[in-house]
């Protein structure tokens, strides 16, 4: 298959105009020695029907959430994506445009991104946001970067932060003078606020709320302690919780980051997702990535532009705070449509349904003999950790045979912990079915 439209006549005419004999001659700057002598080691091209057939066969070898009932979480969740999201975010005028450098030709994307920023600020009750980052993990790195000082090189991360987020933060912190210290969790699964002491080398404290076990964290206290110590609080939040849980801005958080997949984006085996970030006004000039601002045109009519570009790599180059260029705009468009679809009442209902269904699931699953909550004391949102009587990975694999993705094991904690996520999609019937299957597997 080819998408170049050239006919033999076209090529001949164009070569004539250039004054060269053949297409291959256009490549004579390439030194002989490095020129490819043979064809690339790839199969011959195929037709559209062939690739559709092949890809369908690959897709058929996956077991999807249409087929296995999905209780897996850990920053990616099986929330429902309403039809309007695909219908609108899927429009080709959005999909096939580049970053809106020419504002007059891109008011559509620019306005959606302005609305996206407005939504993120409204959800978090923080002042500024941006046009998206790659995902939740890279958003945390960027968020920590905003508030880090060289004279306060330590970053304290609570053990309730998702391990993949911590791994990513370690990767991006490694080449810097900063260090990442992980604070162990208390026995009840939440962060001990005492662990944050008045060390003058701590620049940032990072907490995830709800944490990796779904547990609600004492963010207000952590923020107070961090601020008292002269550090900033970076919070990893769950956007679907913010209809029912107090927003980062009200908790004292300085920079809030999140994985935005839950907002109208497909699971898609981990990507493309989007990173959300919001911060207090004072950090606006240290924000990473594109930011859309409202202004007026030559006639005084309102319009939107990319603004504060002097922060970015294409202007500031090696002095830029971030290297991000291509971001996740199309996912941000989907998230915007999704949030518009939800509305404030829908956001509240979403949170409420997740919390209620998760509570029901916790009680149904712990009614199975030998199954307990790993942290029985702590209140949780839409995820919770089970302690199983046997190896969690084995149970998970056995439940796949019964049509269920039971959750995500936490081998870094112990072999018997399984973290279960429950969204608004999970019915009572599915939850009861999970409990029965679990009982069978453990019998």
């Amino acid at each position, binding site marked *: 298959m080819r998408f170049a439209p050239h006919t033999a006549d076209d090529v001949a005419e164009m*070569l004539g105009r250039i004054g060269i004999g053949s297409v291959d001659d256009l490549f004579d700057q390439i030194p002989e020695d490095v020129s490819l002598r043979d064809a690339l080691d790839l199969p011959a091209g*195929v037709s559209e029907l062939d690739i559709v057939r092949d890809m369908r066969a690959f897709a058929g070898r996956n077991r999807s959430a249409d087929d296995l009932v999905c209780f897996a979480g850990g920053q990616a969740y099986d929330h429902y994506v309403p039809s309007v999201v695909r219908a609108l975010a899927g429009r080709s005028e959005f999909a096939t445009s580049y970053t809106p450098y020419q504002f007059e030709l891109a008011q559509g994307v620019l306005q959606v991104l302005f609305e996206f920023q407005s939504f993120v600020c409204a959800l978090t009750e923080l002042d500024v946001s941006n046009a998206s980052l790659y995902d939740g993990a890279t958003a945390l790195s960027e968020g920590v970067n905003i508030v880090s000082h060289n004279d306060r090189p330590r970053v304290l991360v609570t053990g309730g932060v998702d391990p993949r987020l911590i791994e990513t933060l370690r990767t991006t912190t490694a080449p810097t003078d900063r260090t990442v210290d992980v604070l162990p969790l208390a026995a009840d699964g939440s962060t001990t606020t005492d662990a944050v002491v008045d060390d003058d080398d701590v620049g940032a404290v990072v907490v995830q709320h709800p944490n990796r076990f779904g547990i609600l964290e004492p963010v207000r206290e952590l923020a107070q302690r961090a601020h008292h110590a002269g550090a900033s609080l970076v919070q990893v939040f769950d956007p679907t919780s913010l209809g029912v849980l107090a927003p980062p801005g009200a908790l004292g958080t300085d920079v809030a980051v999140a994985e935005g997949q839950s907002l109208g984006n497909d699971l898609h085996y981990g990507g493309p997702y989007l990173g959300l970030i919001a911060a207090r006004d004072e950090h606006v000039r240290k924000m990473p990535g594109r930011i859309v601002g409202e*202004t007026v045109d030559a006639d005084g009519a309102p319009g939107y532009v990319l603004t504060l570009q002097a922060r970015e790599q294409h202007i500031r180059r090696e002095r830029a705070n971030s290297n991000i260029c291509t971001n996740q705009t199309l996912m941000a468009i989907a998230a915007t449509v999704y949030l518009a679809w939800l509305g404030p009442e829908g956001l509240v209902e979403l949170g409420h349904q997740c919390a209620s269904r998760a509570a029901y699931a916790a009680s149904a699953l712990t009614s199975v003999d030998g199954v307990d909550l790993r942290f029985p004391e702590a209140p949780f949102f839409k995820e919770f950790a089970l302690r199983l009587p046997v190896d969690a990975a084995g149970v998970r694999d056995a439940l796949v045979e019964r049509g269920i993705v039971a959750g995500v094991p936490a081998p870094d904690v112990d072999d018997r912990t399984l973290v279960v996520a429950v969204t608004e999609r999970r019915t009572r019937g599915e939850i009861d079915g999970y409990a029965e299957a679990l009982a069978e597997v453990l019998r």
Partner: protein
Amino acid sequence: MTGAAIRSTGPDGFATLWDRSRPGRRASTFPVLDVPAVEVPPEHARVAPPVMPEIGELELVRHYTRLAQMNYGVDTGFYPLGSCTMKYNPKVAETVASDPGFARVHPLQPDATVQGTLEVLWRLERAICAITGMHRATLQPPAGACGELAGLLMMRAFHADRGVPRSKVLIPDSAHGTNPASVRLAGFEAVSVKSDERGLVDVGSLEGLLDDDVAGLMLTNPNTLGLFERDIERISERVHDAGGLLYYDGANLNAILGRCRPGDMGFDIVHINTHKTFATPHGGGGPGAGPVGVVERLEPFLPAPVLTQADDGSFAWDADRPKSVGRLHGFHGNVGVLLRAYAYVFLHGADGLREVSGLATLNANYLAALVGEALPLAFDAERPMHEFVATASPLRRETGVRAMDLAKRLIDLGFHPPTVYFPLVVQEALMVEPTETETKETLDAFAAAMRRAVSEASTEPERLHEAPTTTPVRRLDEARAARQLQLRWTAPAS
């Protein structure tokens, strides 16, 4: 032609969703709660829901349909944005990537349940290695800039692993902004290498900069002027002799597909922008994907986890990689984008990809010949490859019309403008990349528009200064945007 692709919006065209909100409206619905209702503990509860718009489904659909139509894309017209490779994004790639068998898979499902996706990723990795001449590749980086960081971290780890850390990375002055920014983030110092009068790396000054603190050189080839670095063999010999590594910024890979391979030129690390070379749609700013290939000696440093194939042919993730630079994405990268890249690569096959570079270069050279009649090319000693840079410097001197004015006039004449003011080494730069998917007729029409705009610069310069006039908005006040920051909706003062 297609300036018309952007419709005007009328009186309330710019109303945001907040402006359209009416209390009590709502689009969303949920299943009846069939379990006991539970409230979050009061000390954690939100006091009042966020101030979000309340809107019904039809108004929502109209709002975003209208905004979509206020946007220029490859599907609506020619998009010769230099360095961005805005080629046709095949619809079939959308079809295959949106298969629920791919789209509804959770990233933390057991490997055994995702063998289809894993095999696609494995094959794509092999194809990328075949195309670039690398040994293995990571598909984790979600964009080119992140790929740069991954590659530079591997460069850093490589030197550290040998016990001799190095602190500097060389970058030509024509490089893209992400290159120096990534170098800094990877903990290196960026050292600029001059271009010579050909627009190529000045090998003499390069040699002068090489020492045993140089970790490596980052190069785009063809470079951002669209010119092939013909001294690449000597460059790579020198850098390697000095103990450094060579990094290939793949933004311009489209020019050389199937013609030569970075690995054969001596590069050790290569990133690919799938949203350029492999036609994955750019989505108004993203997503992309930035796979990074490396030579064998760098394999231990690849981001973890790494995909492995067992003897029985099954695939699994290996996270036990002691020398890995670590993780650069929460999961496995932009998998949905990689599926599209897979479809693109395997649709084309070996011959098809070679044809891509041939016709991309043909289109650029043909268009350069036509545009060259109106505006001088920036460095014309070398024949450009897949893109070329013209300059409006003389025009500006003679008429006061700047590259930006030409760009805006092109909009009124129906075209998306080229990249302007990049690369920085060219004043009043207009960087034109037509790509291989455009017809000769389109190139002819664009060149005619360009000629017309340039000639108007002398006869009716105000027409260019005032352009565009056919778009939903006219030129926007960027200074005001930066001064009076309005970065989110706020309730109008009442």
